[in-house]
């Protein structure tokens, strides 16, 4: 078998990660990345990119741990290497704090990040509204740098990139043997998945180079994430909200809530505001199916979308899973020698 034509749809962190995994691991595949939007215009670009997870209700815990571990280890290796500034991947230490003691004091990923422990009383003193906290070191992956870096890797592995809006799989014609769908929120219409919905998030970029730790409220709505050139503060979680424009009320609320956690933010200059729609779903969809397209026998489609606010966190792990599914598809193809 030669030249299996693979098309990956979507150039966010999940699409690019998946495209790289396939192009680098399967030389028999000729991979084309098709997307309407590329960095810096993807949902991934505005995300702070702190690697951090919440459990999905229906995915077996072992699989979620594997997704997290594979992603974390991959990013940690970059953060520790000379590629760190180029790729926009850095180590980040900080605290997750809770107003009430949470039911789960040690989340499923606590042994997968670095140095996880409960905060001491002295550390908690700085947050008088909070009763419990966790301290750990994780990685931060800034997609405005990481996506171009991945794209470079993709091209080096022989990948082709094409800017194009695809509104249905039928449009792809018969030039492709296998489709990998990483279209995030777009899957709602692209593959008719009614389970996909946006969770609107607004953030501010501020200039506060004296902030070196992340601070996150366990409710997921208030956070401060220092990055390479600016600090991302947020946020909002508005389910079913499709608005992509900045809401002044949200900005004011973010500044007020974050200022309470970190008073020095009141002196920070606001550099910009950004809105993204988390491509949410009850669980991420990482599975394969055969889709009947006009004039063709079933075309194998591997889905990898619905990561919600955890795209950066599990992109690499789910990409590896998707790679495994692609391998299975290849085995079933006529002329398969794998």
């Amino acid at each position: 078998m030669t030249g299996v034509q693979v098309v990956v749809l979507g150039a966010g962190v999940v699409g690019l990660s998946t495209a790289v995994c396939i192009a680098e691991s399967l030389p028999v595949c000729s991979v084309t990345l098709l997307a309407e939007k590329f960095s810096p215009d993807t949902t991934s670009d505005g995300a702070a990119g702190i690697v951090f997870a919440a459990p999905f209700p229906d995915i077996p815990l072992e699989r979620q741990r594997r997704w997290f571990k594979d992603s974390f280890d991959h990013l940690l290796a970059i953060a520790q290497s000379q590629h760190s500034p180029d790729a926009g991947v850095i180590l980040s230490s900080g605290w997750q704090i809770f107003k009430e003691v949470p039911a789960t004091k040690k989340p499923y990923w606590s042994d997968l990040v670095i140095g996880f422990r409960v905060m001491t009383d002295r550390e908690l003193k700085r947050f008088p509204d909070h009763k419990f906290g966790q301290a750990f070191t994780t990685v931060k992956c800034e997609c405005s740098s990481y996506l171009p870096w991945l794209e470079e890797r993709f091209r080096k592995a022989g990948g082709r990139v094409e800017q194009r809006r695809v509104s249905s799989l039928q449009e792809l014609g018969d030039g492709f043997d296998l489709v990998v769908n990483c279209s995030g929120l777009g899957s709602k219409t692209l593959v008719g998945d009614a389970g996909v919905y946006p969770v609107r998030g607004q953030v501010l970029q501020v200039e506060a180079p004296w902030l070196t730790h992340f601070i996150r409220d366990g409710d997921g709505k208030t956070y401060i994430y220092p990055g390479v050139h600016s600090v991302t503060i947020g946020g909002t979680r508005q389910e079913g909200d499709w608005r992509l424009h900045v809401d002044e009320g949200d900005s004011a609320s973010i500044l007020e809530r974050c200022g309470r956690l970190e008073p020095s933010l009141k002196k920070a200059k606001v550099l910009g505001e950004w809105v993204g729609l988390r491509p949410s779903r009850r669980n991420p969809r990482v599975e394969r199916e055969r889709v009947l397209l006009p004039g063709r026998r079933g075309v194998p489609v591997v889905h990898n979308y619905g990561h919600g606010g955890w795209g950066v966190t599990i992109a690499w792990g789910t990409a590896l899973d998707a790679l495994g599914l692609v391998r299975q598809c290849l085995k079933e193809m006529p002329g398969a020698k794998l």
Partner: protein
Amino acid sequence: MRVAVIGAGVIGLSAAQSIFEQYHSRVSPLTIEVYADRFTPLTTSDGAAGFWQPYLYDKGNIQETKWNKETFDYLLNWLSSPEAVKMGIFLQSGYNLCTEPLPEPSFKDIVLGFRQLTERELQMFPGYNFGWFNTALMVEGKTYLPWLTDWLKKRGVKFYHKKIESFKELSDAGVDVIINCTGIRSGELQPDPDLTPGRGQIVKVDAPWLKHWIITHNSKAGVYNSPYIIPGSRLVTVGGVFQLGNWSEQNNSTDHENIWKTACQLEPSLKHARVVEDWTGLRPVRSKVRLERETIQSGGSTIEVIHNYGHGGFGLTIHRGCAQETARLFGQIVTQKGKRPKARL
């Protein structure tokens, strides 16, 4: 009462601050003057990375550990105020790396979240097999000293750009108490064989992706003679050398090469960092800090001096504790001079 502080590094300015805070309402009139030939940003305090951390062990100088703690708690308290940014203070976590297991350092209960490094963390630093992680404070001299200067000027403290040649010079001019904060050059006012320079050279680079300090310890090489990387609010300070007895304030290219080579081994991403400048400073090293009163007989009169110098590589780390002690000693002098402090109600 007329007080003259000699020296405008962090030690001199903070001593002036503590004296003002504690005595401006008890002693009237209280005139405080600061004399120095170098002011921020040209003092030793300005070039230092601004990282709060004492040497690993205090060698029995428990007083110094107490002063270090006082300073940490004082600065930590300021953090909850928006003023913290203007003072140049902020929290930063990081790694103390050792090539062999060592006893816990004097500061383990002073800093936040002190713990041993995990296996995973040690794997991040090949060549080091033991160490600690904790959250400490940064206090950047180039911001803190202007803040202190401003604080003092607002309260009427006068600054004079003048090199003082002797204690007598000030005493003759009518100064009642001299606070000697002359750091490495204290020997010029009064010979001190125990005071010696610990020359340090650093390279300042632009590497904003680094958010942790990394300090390595090599018991054979000695303190600060092995690589360290300390990110600041604008630039990253890379060091280190600690050359006892070397009075040269010139940057040395061999030192630069060694510092750079070992730091890049420690942190590979540094090779992409833009080098901004080198700087050399002389740590005022002494077996222990000289913080004591001295009453000098000169002719028919007595000169009251409070010495506050010899803080080695931990001036910023210990400054507040020493300043408060200086003020306490000042209080003794005030009492003795019969100008009793007003009773506290």
